[in-house]
């Protein structure tokens, strides 16, 4: 068939083009929201940012390292309380907060990871559950630092630099939160690209083989876990910047479970998928639920159950599935039988 090469390259170009559709739609939606006069909408969207960054962190550990985790709320909590304490002590520079949050998150995740990365699967999940419980319990118990179960409120707004005004305007906060979220996600994607991605794929696909080839798998996993801790710490700093209050419930088991499930809805191995999953979950829980007060769990449950049946492989597999849909006959003259890349191999068990 002489036309096959052209049609195939045409198809590749099309799928390359399609790759840019979700980010373009996201940016367009953000521009619309930023331009709109609705301050409440802007505040609602910017308050999704910390959870989204936490989801990216969980997707790094769950999808790339292959360790299903509930424990990323610990570095998230430490990042948040560090930021809150800094702000209450009069240090309001946002870059300092982000750096301190990332550092504190990385340290906590590094210490926890040293014990955790030796385990896999269910045992890892349960140990990380213990971590989640511990972080919420400590947040409730350590009165002097965390304000106990009452939490910390009245945290001063951050400023980008010592000379600039504080970030209080909803539009400015949204722009700031969106920028930090995007930068963190893109940085995580770039860091997990190419050989590193393949190395992790190999390690979780056949760990014994990777070990036999001389790869220190646990060290890789520890590095990924620690890096994800830095991401979660940044998410914690964002939590303070967008909400300006915190309670132990923000860093407890429920947050940990819902963020993990948001990542599963997103597709586990895809970081943009995790962002989409987090936004979907928060939209249902905080926006759609406004029309049925008190029934957020019901709506969230319906979303989870529906996602299992409607979205196997998560949101990240959706474009590939749409491409696989049987097309109308007038669009395709002859099926060329070329294999279309499967959605990224899923290796969790």
């Amino acid at each position: 068939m002489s036309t096959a090469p052209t049609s195939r390259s045409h198809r590749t170009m099309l799928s390359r083009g399609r790759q840019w559709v979700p980010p373009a739609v996201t940016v367009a939606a953000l521009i619309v929201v930023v331009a709109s006069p609705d301050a409440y909408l802007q505040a609602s969207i910017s308050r999704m940012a910390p959870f989204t960054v936490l989801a990216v962190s969980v997707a790094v550990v769950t999808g790339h390292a292959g360790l299903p985790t509930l424990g990323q709320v610990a570095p998230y909590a430490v990042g948040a309380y560090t930021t809150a304490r800094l702000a209450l002590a009069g240090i309001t520079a946002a870059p300092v907060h982000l750096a301190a949050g990332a550092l504190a998150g990385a340290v906590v995740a590094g210490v926890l990871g040293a014990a955790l990365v030796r385990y896999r699967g269910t045992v890892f999940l349960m140990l990380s559950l213990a971590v989640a419980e511990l972080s919420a319990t400590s947040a409730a118990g350590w009165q002097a630092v965390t304000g106990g179960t009452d939490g910390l409120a009245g945290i001063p707004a951050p400023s980008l630099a010592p000379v600039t005004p504080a970030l209080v305007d909803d539009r400015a906060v949204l722009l700031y939160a969106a920028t930090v979220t995007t930068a963190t996600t893109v940085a995580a994607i770039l860091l997990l690209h190419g050989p590193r991605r393949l190395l992790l794929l190999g390690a979780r696909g056949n760990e014994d083989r990777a070990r036999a080839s001389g790869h220190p798998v646990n060290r890789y996993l520890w590095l990924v876990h620690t890096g994800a801790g830095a991401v979660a710490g940044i998410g914690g700093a964002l939590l303070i910047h967008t909400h300006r209050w915190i309670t132990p419930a923000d860093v407890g088991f429920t947050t940990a479970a819902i963020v993990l499930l948001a990542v599963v809805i997103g597709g586990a191995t895809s970081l943009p998928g995790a962002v989409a999953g987090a936004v979907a979950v928060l939209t249902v829980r905080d926006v759609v639920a406004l029309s049925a007060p008190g029934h957020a769990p019901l709506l969230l449950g319906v979303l989870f159950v529906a996602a299992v049946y409607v979205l196997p492989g998560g949101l990240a597999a959706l474009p590939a599935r749409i491409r696989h849909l049987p097309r109308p006959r007038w669009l395709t003259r002859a099926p060329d039988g070329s294999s279309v890349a499967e959605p990224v191999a899923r290796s969790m068990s």
Partner: protein
Amino acid sequence: MDANLILAIDGIAYGLLLAIAAAGLTLAFGAGGVLNLAHGTLVAAGGYLAVATSSGTWSSLAAGMLAATAVGAAGGGVMAAATAALNRRRHLDQALLTFGAALIGGDLLTTIFGPDILRPRVPAVLEGTVIVAGRPYPADRLAVLGIAVAIAVAGYGGLHRTRAGRLIRATVDDRGMVAGIGVNPRLVDAAVLVASGALAGLAGALSTPILGVGPDTADTVLLLSLIIVVCGGLGSVPGAVAAAVAVGLVQTVGVTTIPGLAPYLLIFTMALVLLARRTPLTGEVHR
């Protein structure tokens, strides 16, 4: 010392209730690989139904127990049907499905029964106390302890002395072999989920006179059951019973004797067990 003895009896009673709830969970995981996160919600549903049914007479109490068991079994059946369609999918998909079901069920229960902690009206005899080792002890707790022991013994007999029980244990050990002798292991999975749901409902009904049932019941029971299932060794009923009694004792005796560490005690115990265990669980690195 006597006070500690009373606490220990409390702890064992609590532990046995948890064991009844967790035994089904661990079997369902061992046999079919289904980790049912809606398990706690089935316990809560059983508890609510028992509270709604029992009105202070013995017959209504029995009816409440039966209704709780039935609703648990029905819930288990729903979970069996829902997870059967997910055969060969990841555990995380199951978690998504069963946690979603738990959220839906919890919301419906709170909508129907309200946000308060409810307690059933039990016959007057059970409201009183009896003398145990020279100290007064609540009669309802003693009754619950007795029933829990009876169920544990019956469950042991059922698992070891009946064909159905042996099939279940065989499925945990070797699915292929069960299929080889002409029994569909997926049928066993479904039966285990229904049975574990029934046990969950019954455990919920039994615990209401002591603990009551409220919006937090499902989460608490699920968390404790997960700890029990993992510490006891996934799929092992004796392990789960031992872990459940240990959890019951930690939650009563431990918390009272070391109140300063109360919130951490259980989690630390679990972490210690997991970190120190000699026999590897599924998914652990063999080295």
